[in-house]
C-alpha cells in the first residue's frame, strides 16, 4: 500500500463519486456504454462514456487523463536541452514537430536566432514528421472503418520516411535533434538525394490511398455527411489544424504567422474543404501530405550552406521572461508558453496541445449519431492520446 495524502484520497473518492453520478444519471434512460479506455478504436487510452438509445447516442462524455504523464511538471526539473528528449513523446508519431515550438520560444527568450541552414533543415524535418504522422492516419482511418489492408501499406511507406529521419537524427521515433540556436548535427552525405526518392514513394502512396480508400464507395458512404462541424462551432471549441480547415476555415499558421521556420519563403498551398464532414477531414489531410512533400522538396533544393549552430553558451541559462510560440503541427496548433526566471530550468511551461481541444468537441458532436459513426468521427478527428493527456 502506498502512502497517499489526504488530498489524494479525497480526489480518488471524488472521482469514484463522479463516475457513480454519471452512471446513476445515465442509467435511467437507455444503455450506458464505455468506449475505452482499452479499445482498438481510441488511439490510446481515451474513455468515452456514451448513453445509448438503441444504436443512437443521446449523450457522450470523454474522460481523459488515463495517460497523463505530468509533462508540465517534469519539464520544471529539467534543463532546457533535456526538455527536447521529453517533449518528443507528446505527439509520438510526428515527434520532431513537438520540439520545434519549445526551441523557438526558448530562442526568443535568449534572443538567439538559428543560422539559415539550420532553419531550412528544421523546416524539412518538421514537414517530414508531418508526413510520417499523417500517412499513418490515412491508413488507420481505413482500419477504423473495417478496411484492414491500407494500414499495412501506410506502415510500409512510413518506414522509408522514418529511415530518413533516423539517418539525420539517429532516432526513428524520437529524434531529439533540435537545440537552442540550431540543430545538433548537419545532414549526412547523400541524404538529400535519398529523401527526394522517398518523397516520390510517398506521392505514389497518396495516389493509391486516394484511389483505394477515398474513392471507395463504402468509405464515402460511411464518411460523407457524418460528423459535420460548422466553422464557427469548431473555432469556438478551439479546434485547429486539418480539422478546422476541413470546415472551410482558411487558416494555417505556417502561412499566416511568422512561425520561425521558412515556410513563408516557399511556394505551397493551404488546402480547405467546405463540407466539414469526416470525409473532408480525410481529404484535407491527404492533400496536406502531398503538399508537405512539395515543401520538403523545395527545402532540400534550396538549403543554404553555412553552420548549423549559432554561438550559444555551453551552459544554457535562459534570461527571465515569458514567451509563447505556436506552430502548425501535424495534429493542429501546438504552443509552448515558457516562463523563465533566469535559471537553468524553466519555471513553468504550459503546453497547448492540439488534440485536447480537438477532442473537447466530442460531447457536442456525438449527440444523435449512430454508434458506428462515433468510431468514424473519432477516427477522422485524429487525436493522439499523448497529445491530449501530456
Amino acid at each position: 500500500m502506498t502512502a497517499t495524502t489526504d488530498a489524494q484520497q479525497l480526489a480518488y473518492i471524488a472521482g469514484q463519486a463522479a463516475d457513480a453520478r454519471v452512471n446513476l444519471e445515465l442509467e435511467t434512460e437507455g444503455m450506458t456504454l464505455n468506449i475505452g479506455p482499452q479499445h482498438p478504436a481510441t488511439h490510446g487510452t481515451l474513455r468515452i462514456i456514451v448513453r445509448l438509445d438503441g444504436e443512437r447516442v443521446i449523450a457522450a462524455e470523454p474522460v481523459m487523463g488515463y495517460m497523463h504523464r505530468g509533462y508540465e511538471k517534469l519539464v520544471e526539473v529539467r534543463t532546457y536541452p533535456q526538455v527536447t528528449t521529453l517533449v518528443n513523446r507528446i505527439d509520438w508519431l510526428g515527434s520532431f514537430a513537438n520540439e520545434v515550438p519549445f526551441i523557438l520560444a526558448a530562442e526568443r527568450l535568449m534572443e538567439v536566432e538559428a543560422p539559415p541552414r539550420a532553419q531550412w533543415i528544421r523546416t524539412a524535418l518538421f514537414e517530414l514528421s508531418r508526413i510520417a504522422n499523417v500517412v499513418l492516419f490515412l491508413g488507420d482511418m481505413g482500419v477504423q472503418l473495417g478496411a484492414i489492408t491500407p494500414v499495412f501499406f501506410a506502415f510500409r511507406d512510413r518506414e522509408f520516411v522514418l529511415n530518413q529521419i533516423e539517418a539525420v537524427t539517429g532516432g526513428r521515433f524520437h529524434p531529439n535533434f533540435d537545440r537552442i540556436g540550431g540543430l545538433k548535427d548537419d545532414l549526412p552525405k547523400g541524404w538529400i538525394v535519398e529523401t527526394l526518392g522517398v518523397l516520390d514513394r510517398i506521392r505514389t502512396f497518396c495516389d493509391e490511398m486516394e484511389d483505394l480508400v477515398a474513392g471507395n464507395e463504402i468509405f464515402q458512404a460511411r464518411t460523407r455527411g457524418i460528423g459535420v462541424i460548422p466553422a464557427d462551432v469548431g473555432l469556438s471549441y478551439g479546434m485547429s489544424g486539418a480539422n478546422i480547415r476541413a470546415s472551410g476555415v482558411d487558416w494555417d499558421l505556417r502561412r499566416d504567422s511568422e512561425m520561425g521556420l521558412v515556410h513563408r519563403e516557399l511556394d505551397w498551398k493551404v488546402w480547405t474543404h467546405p463540407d466539414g464532414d469526416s470525409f473532408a477531414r480525410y481529404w484535407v489531410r491527404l492533400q496536406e501530405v502531398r503538399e508537405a512533400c512539395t515543401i520538403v522538396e523545395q527545402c532540400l533544393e534550396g538549403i543554404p550552406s553555412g553552420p548549423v549552430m549559432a554561438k550559444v553558451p555551453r551552459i544554457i541559462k535562459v534570461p527571465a521572461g515569458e514567451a509563447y510560440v505556436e506552430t502548425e503541427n501535424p495534429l493542429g496548433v501546438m504552443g509552448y508558453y515558457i516562463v523563465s526566471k533566469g535559471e537553468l530550468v524553466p519555471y513553468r511551461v504550459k503546453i497547448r496541445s492540439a488534440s485536447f481541444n480537438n477532442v473537447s468537441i466530442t460531447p457536442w458532436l456525438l449527440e444523435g449519431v449512430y454508434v458506428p459513426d462515433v468510431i468514424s468521427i473519432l477516427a477522422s478527428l485524429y487525436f493522439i492520446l499523448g497529445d491530449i493527456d501530456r
Partner: protein
Amino acid sequence: MSTLTLAAELAYWQQTSIRAVVGLVAVLVPAGTLVYLFLFKMMSFMQSRLGPMEAGPYGSLQLLAEVGKFLQKEDIVPAKADRVVFKAAPFVVLVSTFLLVLVIPGGPDLVFIDVDTGIFLALAVSSISVIGILMAGWASASKYSLLGALRATGQLIAYELPLVLAVMGVVIQAGTLNMQGIVMAQAQGEIFGFGGIGSPFIITQFLGFAIFLVAVQAELTQPPFDMPVAESELVTGYLTEYSGMRFLMFFIGEFATAGIFSALAATLFLGGWYVPGLDPTDNLFNVIGPMVLMGKVILVAFLIFWFRFTYPRFREDQLQTLAWKVLIPLSLVNIVVTGVLKVVF
C-alpha cells in the same frame, strides 16, 4: 452413400462410422484449407507481408499449432453469464454447418442424403446459426456482445431473403430442387444449342450468382458486412467473451461455413462435381468429383475472401438498405426474367 455399391457388404455400424468420418472430413478439410490459403497466405500477400512461415513448410501447419494453443487455454465463463446457454452456443452454430454438408453432392453417388428438396433443406438449415449467435451474445452478459448479437440477428435475417431468391432462378432453370438434379441439369444442358461445356448456371444466372455471393458474404458476417464483429467498435461483438476452445469452434465454424457456402455456390452455379467433356454418369466422377468440387470451392472462396480483405464495413442501416431496397428487387427481377425465358425457350 446408400446408393453406392461396394465389393463387400458393410455392416450398419461400419457404414455409419464411415459416414461420420467423411462428414467430419468434408467440413474440416475445406475449413482448414481456406484458413491456410486465404486467411494466412492471401491476406498476407495482399498486405505485402508473408504470413506464418514457421510452422511446417511455408506455414502450412500453422492451423494445427493454433488448435494446440487453443486446446490448452483456460476455460473462462464470465461470472454473470448464463452458463448453459453460453456453453451451448458454439455447438448450435456448428450444427447448422454440419447439417448443410448433408445435401451437397461430391459425385454422382456421393451424397449423404439425396432428398428431392435438397436445396430447400440447405437454405432452411443455414438459418439455425442465427439462434446460436443470439445465444452467444445474450448469454455473455456483456453490453458489447449484446449489441453485436442484435446487429447480427437483424443482418442475417435480412440477407436470408436475397439468398433464397437468388437460388430460385437456378431452381427454375434446372426444374428441380434436388441437388443432384441441378448438377445434372448443368451437365446435360445446352446454351442455345451449344452443348460442349454443358450449361453452368453462372452464365445464364450471372445476376443470381452476384446476389448469392453478396448474400453469402453477409450470412458469414464477413466484411463489408461484419458489423456484428466490427473489430474496431465492439472488440469482437458477440464473440467477445469467448476464449480458448469455444472461440476456436466459432472460428472454425466461420471458415467451415464459408467453405460449405462456397460448395453450395459451386454446385448451384458452377456445375458442382462435373467437368465438361466427360459422361456425367461415369464412375470416374465418384473418384475425382470431390477434388473437382474442392477446386471450385477454392475459386468461389477466393472471391469471398478478396472482398473481405478489401472493403470497409457498411453501417447497419446501410446494410439493411442494401438488402431490402437493392438486392431483393434485383433478385425478383431475376426470377421474372428467368421464368419468362424458361417458358419461351
